[in-house]
């Protein structure tokens, strides 16, 4: 009996999107969906039972509009019947509980040989660091297909929650402690990862893309990721920064001039070098630039805005930016500065990125 039900509800592994659920893209998705379908069919059955009974009674025992006579009929109770409809649902929910518990343990118990990634949630971006390669990714998580991956997660500020709907996994990301989850991707592809615990202004822009790549390419890709900028010339850095580093900034700083939680990057270098930016303190940037001034070179202002963003806050903004002290190598800060200087060459007028990380034009 159970096996018949199982075969009716089970979907083949890697099932595409259906009426209720998105594509199955991880090894646990199949069993989660089985539980979901089992419960959903139980719901259909009881919902039909309740609504059909209600409709039948509504029609059959409907009072005529001018009928005011009160006729007493029908039983006032029936203990056997009532005990039945108490006990039957009880047995049914115990079954659901057990199926759900087994699926859950399956979800939580990571295999022993997981590839490990450390995840940091920070308003409003995800940073993934690969200890094995010394590589850090922002807004993108590269993982091998067909290999269990464990994410060890913490937050730098408030609560976040990491959810990959196609993988059916989710876990809160909490400051001051570690939480973890694991998955094994079934197919090469790109999958959306989002924040599902409310975390403030740009909560709804806190995305990352999970890039699942073939196992044989994985080591090569990650090794390159770890050191690619080290050997780059100054001219190669803007394309690198806009593709690899800008993900961290994009929830607040637009490329098309639109106002976000922070000032747009479009035209930023012009504004900075002109010095006509006003701060909330009332000072103008120009008074801080030039020989024997606070910043001296305009590049120093960019540098401080990344490492100590609260020092000078641009008028009209709240200053919500966290410090990136200790999270960027010197060369990456240089890459940012080069990115600002050359922004027009690497983006379109509409604010779309127009180059690949290696500098070739993007199609």
């Amino acid at each position: 009996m159970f096996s018949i039900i199982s075969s009716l509800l089970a979907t083949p592994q890697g099932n595409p999107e259906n009426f209720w659920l998105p594509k199955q893209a991880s090894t646990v998705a199949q069993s989660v969906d089985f539980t979901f379908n089992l419960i959903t069919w139980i719901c259909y059955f009881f919902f039909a039972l309740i609504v059909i009974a209600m409709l039948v009674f509504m029609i059959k025992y409907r009072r005529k509009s001018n009928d005011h006579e009160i006729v007493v009929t029908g039983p006032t109770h029936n203990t056997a019947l009532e005990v039945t409809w108490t006990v039957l649902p009880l047995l049914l929910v115990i079954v659901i509980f057990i199926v759900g518990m087994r699926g859950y343990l399956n979800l939580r118990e990571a295999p022993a040989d997981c590839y490990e990634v450390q995840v940091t949630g920070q308003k409003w971006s995800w940073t993934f660091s690969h200890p094995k390669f010394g590589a850090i990714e922002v807004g993108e998580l590269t993982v091998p297909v067909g290999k269990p991956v464990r994410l060890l997660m913490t937050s730098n500020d408030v609560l976040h929650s990491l959810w990959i709907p196609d993988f059916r996994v989710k876990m809160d990301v909490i400051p001051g402690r570690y939480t973890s989850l694991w998955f094994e991707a079934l197919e090469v592809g790109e999958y959306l990862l989002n924040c599902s615990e409310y975390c403030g202004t740009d909560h709804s822009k806190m995305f990352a893309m999970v890039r699942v790549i073939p196992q044989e390419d994985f080591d090569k890709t990650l090794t390159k990721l770890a050191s690619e900028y080290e050997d780059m010339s100054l001219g190669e850095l803007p394309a690198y920064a806009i593709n690899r580093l800008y993900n961290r900034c994009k929830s607040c700083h637009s490329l098309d001039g639109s106002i976000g939680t922070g000032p747009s990057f479009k035209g930023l270098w012009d504004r900075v070098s002109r010095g006509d930016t006003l701060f909330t303190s009332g000072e103008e940037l120009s008074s801080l630039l030039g020989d024997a001034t606070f910043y001296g070179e305009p590049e120093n202002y960019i540098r401080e805005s990344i490492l100590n963003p609260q020092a000078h806050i641009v008028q009209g903004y709240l200053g919500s930016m966290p410090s990136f002290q200790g999270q960027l190598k010197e060369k990456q800060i240089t890459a940012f500065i080069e990115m600002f200087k050359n922004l027009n060459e690497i983006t379109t007028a509409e604010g779309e990125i127009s180059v690949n990380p290696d500098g070739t034009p993007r199609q």
Partner: protein
Amino acid sequence: MSTLTTTNSNDNYLNHTKGILSWLCTVDHKRIGIMYLVCVLFAFFLGGVFAMLLRFQLLTPEGMFLTQDQYNQAFTMHGAIMVFLVIIPAVPAALGNFVLPIMLGAKDVAFPKLNLFSWYLWIAGLVFFLLALATGGLDTGWTFYTPYSIDKASSMGGVIPALIGAFILGFSSIFTGMNFIVTIHRLRPKGMTWFRMPLFLWATYATAIIQVLATPVVGITLLLLIVERSMGIGIFDPAMGGDPVLYQHFFWFYSHPAVYIMILPAMGIISELISVHSHRHIFGYKFIAYSSIAIAMFGFIVWGHHMFTSGQSQLMNIIFSLVTFSVSIPSAVKVFNWLATLYKGSISLNTPMIYGLSFIFIFAIGGLTGLHLATLATDIHLHDSYFVVAHFHYVMMGSALIGFLGGIHHWWPKMTGKMYHEGWGRVAAILVFIGFNVTFFSQFMMGSKGMPRRYATYAEMPEFQVYHIWSTAGSVILAIGFVICAIYLLQSCFAGKKAPANPWGGRSLEWQCSSPPPWDNFAEQPEVGDCYDYSVLEWNEEEQGYVWKKDVLHPGEANG
């Protein structure tokens, strides 16, 4: 003997004394109930305006007209107003206050002055919430999760006024609950044993127990949060050595039982509506009564199911999942008993009954989808998604609020002494039913497909736009239903037909005093029998209502 009314029939609680002060200083439970009703409906309007802002913002993936921060404020205010100012007080404080003492044949609640004080506390709570809006806004979500709500750089400036508001509203709720417990214990009339109480009283009694036992916990929690935010004492903020997950335990220890504060009284109303409007003795009285108490009790031990993804231990998740299923049983029992009550009844499809039947339909969906969320394997995926949003709107709005609307229509003739326009009543009830389902059913689908809640924009997931458009369209139908409802109810106050004492053929005591009730309800506390035995009533053409049969004695008159 056709009626128990003994006072002059022209004198009633509405015209007994006059002037605004006679209302603001009243200790009469009926007037306090009406004052609550007016205020709660005003707050419902406010919360509804925020809801419409949210729905229209989400018509396009990039958002229509709100900034991220404005959206975050709008969903916070929508949630906070609807939970603290509307659904929690709606049924007990507004309808309960009006009906409960009359159902007992009493002249008032046990502590009338405390009752008035509760109302003033509600007003103070509202003022503090408006103050939160004025002092920098509130964007923490109605849950005030830590450390977001502690961090002044993250959350907006109105957190402390809002916390004080919620704290004060907690006391309002506790006092009402205490009042009802004592009233039900001490003021029941002769003949009304516990198992002869109308089921609405069982439901309010169970609710009152939760109000008195659970609300203090959230009060203390909010107080700790105020202390932490204003003085920097580390309790919940990990940066100061605190524990942010501890806050969630404290918060849900109240706020889960609070869900039953919202739904139980509505279930009580439905038990009355279904029985009265089908002139059929309620089926399985004791099972329904016990199930109210069971829901209240189980409700205390399931809070951890709000935290399945919070990192609490696997063992705890498993225990909370198991216990959570226990709530589904008494809920199912109630639904089956209501259906059995319809069996062989004489079902009038009038406005209150349309709300009653809508409740069964909607609560069935809301309750059944709870199974997906109680089950661990599926909840991990569904947690904090629109599936959860849809589920709790089916329970808290589609059920609790529609129960409230049903109750308003059921007792409107009693409260105002006027009949509303039945045709428009039905139109509005059907629009509300359709609008509600269109609005929220689409949210189940986008939730299980991966749409997270509390998103101001969804530019990366444009595939969800079609569901959002459906949802917004539904909310417009819903709003039209509410507007029609408001118009004909107001119209009835001025131009409605005079209501008879007992328009529906109800048997509980409130239908045995005139409409509107006299100032002191009953000259003497009457004796009661079986409040679901309709055989003693008959239709009276002259009164256009039901009256006691001439040849049948009232309880306590035997051999008289």
